[in-house]
């Protein structure tokens, strides 16, 4: 093994009343447990299970909101229409692009932020912490507007500030081209969500045993070697959880695109496509099918993360 980790420590078992008679207690705890957790469980199911079942059902129909009389069962036709449409694959591509770029940059940047937070002077720490929480807490719509106005050819300052960069001039129309528009969308997303990643990574950094660091130092490992062989392997769980949450989040990107380009120039994400079919085009059947496919895609991503990368959520969440 080329990396150094400590064996997992035993987790604390829940502390509860001393054992009397196992079966009695188990029954009582079960009842109490469901009594307490039941309402939350029921609310979660109600607000999500019902709509997704309804959407799945409606996705099998040709159904236009303004024309309910002609609603007809068409089976999987809607899915066929979507999966054979280049616009769907383009949206998947755009969504995947935004996801990969933002998550990758955020991971590196977030790691850097976390390192600075650990190393910075004690006096600086509260300032840093407050600063880093602000992008996290700001409404996405507000952040989208701020970035849009900044890059806007009329109201923005970016063009006049960065005119010295090759390819940027007073007349650069950031939202007029697909890739520059996507770049601005990615920048806004990265700004908004890097703090969340860096906080999760910060938690991971704190879990790296100091003993191992010292041992590696004694063995003459360079700073770089220590980072790759000790620090990162020991915070793999935290990294994976951060990755998973952000990937799923990024895959549902909607607000920024809605505000900044409204889907123009090939910047539609899958969420946006679903919105356009259902809300703007009023094709409930087709739109529901897009929603269901989006849901399946998200489940697939979550599943493959958990299975392929063996992300142990319970470990990272301190279960």
């Amino acid at each position, binding site marked *: 093994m080329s990396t150094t980790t400590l064996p997992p420590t035993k987790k604390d078992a829940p502390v509860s009343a001393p054992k009397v008679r196992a079966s009695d207690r188990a029954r009582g705890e079960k009842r109490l447990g469901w009594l307490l957790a039941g309402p939350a469980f029921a609310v979660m199911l109600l607000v999500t299970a019902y709509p997704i079942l309804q959407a799945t059902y409606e996705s099998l129909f*040709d159904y236009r*909101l*303004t*024309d*309910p009389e002609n609603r007809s069962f068409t089976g999987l036709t809607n899915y066929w*229409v*979507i999966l054979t*449409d280049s*616009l*769907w694959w383009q949206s998947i591509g755009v969504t995947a692009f935004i996801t990969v770029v933002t998550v990758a940059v955020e991971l590196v940047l977030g790691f850097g932020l976390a390192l600075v937070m650990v190393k910075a002077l004690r006096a600086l720490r509260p300032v840093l912490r407050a600063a880093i929480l602000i992008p996290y807490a700001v409404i996405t719509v507000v952040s989208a507007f701020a970035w849009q106005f900044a890059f806007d*050819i*009329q109201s923005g300052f970016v063009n006049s500030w960065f005119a010295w960069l090759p390819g940027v001039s*007073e*007349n*650069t*129309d950031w*939202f*007029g081209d697909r890739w520059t528009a996507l770049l601005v969308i990615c920048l806004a997303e990265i700004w908004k969500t890097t703090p969340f990643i860096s906080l999760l990574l910060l938690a991971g950094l704190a879990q790296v045993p100091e003993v191992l660091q010292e041992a590696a130092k004694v063995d003459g490992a360079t700073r770089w070697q220590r980072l790759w062989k000790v620090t990162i392997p020991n915070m793999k769980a935290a990294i994976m959880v951060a990755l998973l949450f952000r990937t799923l989040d990024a895959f549902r990107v909607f607000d920024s695109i809605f*505000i900044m*380009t*409204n889907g*123009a*120039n090939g910047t539609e994400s899958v969420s946006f*496509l679903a919105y*356009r*079919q259902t*809300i*703007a*085009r*009023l*094709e409930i059947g*087709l739109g529901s099918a*897009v929603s269901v496919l989006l849901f399946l895609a998200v489940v697939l991503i979550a599943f493959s993360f958990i299975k392929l990368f063996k992300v142990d959520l319970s470990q990272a969440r301190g279960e």
Partner: protein
Amino acid sequence: MSAIPDPHSPRARTGVPGQGRARPRRLAGAAAGALLASGLAACGGGGGDASTLTWYINPDAGGQAEIAARCTEEADGRYTIETALLPRDAASQREQLIRRLAANDDSIDLMSLDPPFIPEFAQAGFLAPVPDDVADRVTEGVVESAVEGSTWDGELVAVPFWANTQLLWYRESVAEEAGLDMSEPVTWEQIVQAAEETGTLVGAQGTRAESLTVWFNALIESAGGSIITEASPGDPSQIELGLTSEAGVRATEVMQMVAESDAVGAAFSTANEDSTATGFESESGGFQVNYPFVYPRALGAAEAGTLDPSVPEDYAATIYPRVDEETPAAPPYGGINLAVSAFSESPELAYEAAECIVSDENQAYYFVTNGNPASSTAVYDDPEVLEAFPMAPVIRESLEQAAPRPQTPYYNEISVGIQRSYHPPSSVQPGETGENATELIKAVLAKEDLL
């Protein structure tokens, strides 16, 4: 945001500011608490009392709320009009109204509707039939395009309210320098050439939004064609498009010529009405096609000291440019018409209120204070109107010539399909783009494609 609304409403810079708006809204705000208290409550607004009419208005500078208050007073207790605000862009206004109407919502009585969406509402059975006597009265002395815009399948389905149109705005100094005789009709080629010679800009709306359809429709109609040649009210798969016709190709050529010329600004593919007006106010302003709001906008900026007062003095307006020298132009038509919901509890009262709202007096008030041109021709002789808008006669003439956008219940599909195919305008290919657009729109109408 790039959503482009059809109507417009310059804030009254000279007249009464939007104070009328506050009254009804406070009521609604107060209602929020009551709604919460009752837990389960019907939708907001003035449900319950049949003599209270709820009028959903597009955002403006307060004119519609003031008109509502005036009509309420005039009605002397027979009805009370409360206003509720719709989103800024026309597409979102439609989305919100249509979802509520599809659910048979009886809390909407009157609606300020953007004309292209009227057929969709009418076809779906969301509009209460216009009584014959009302229809006769509200179409008398009204510009042709506004009547057309309120008609679906041969019947009047809405009450013409105000009518908007784009003019060709030019800087007199620039036209003079280029030696262009603006008293005669001009073509797109001429203004692009004049702008290139004088190093000025030609402004048009190249952004991917409703305004692109507005532009393209004006081009194809000016070339003697139409986006839709066979409306087929009942069956969307039978809709015939005229995009590949000679006029369609000609319109595409003009669009390409303008977009590729040196006369358009750097951000042409994201240019909307507002940025076009900004470009026209700048030093390189030469020509633009735009709605009348650009005039009070420039006057306001001059008053605020951010624009040299000599600039608005240099403004002049004439009829929309022609595509071909011989054929009169078909300028864009927009505005707002009033519709009465089929689910209203008191449609008769609602029509009575609608007639009051569109009275010549109210239209003149709205024109002068909010800058929204009247659909009634008599208003254009009002001295106050002429004082606020010296170009009022041109607006009226333009409205008489104007062509509505395609009238079809599937307007959204067609317009978004056009925006997808003809954007960015510099990429269009005469012939090819029309074919692609036809293919896409047909597939979308047949529900074989996403949009």
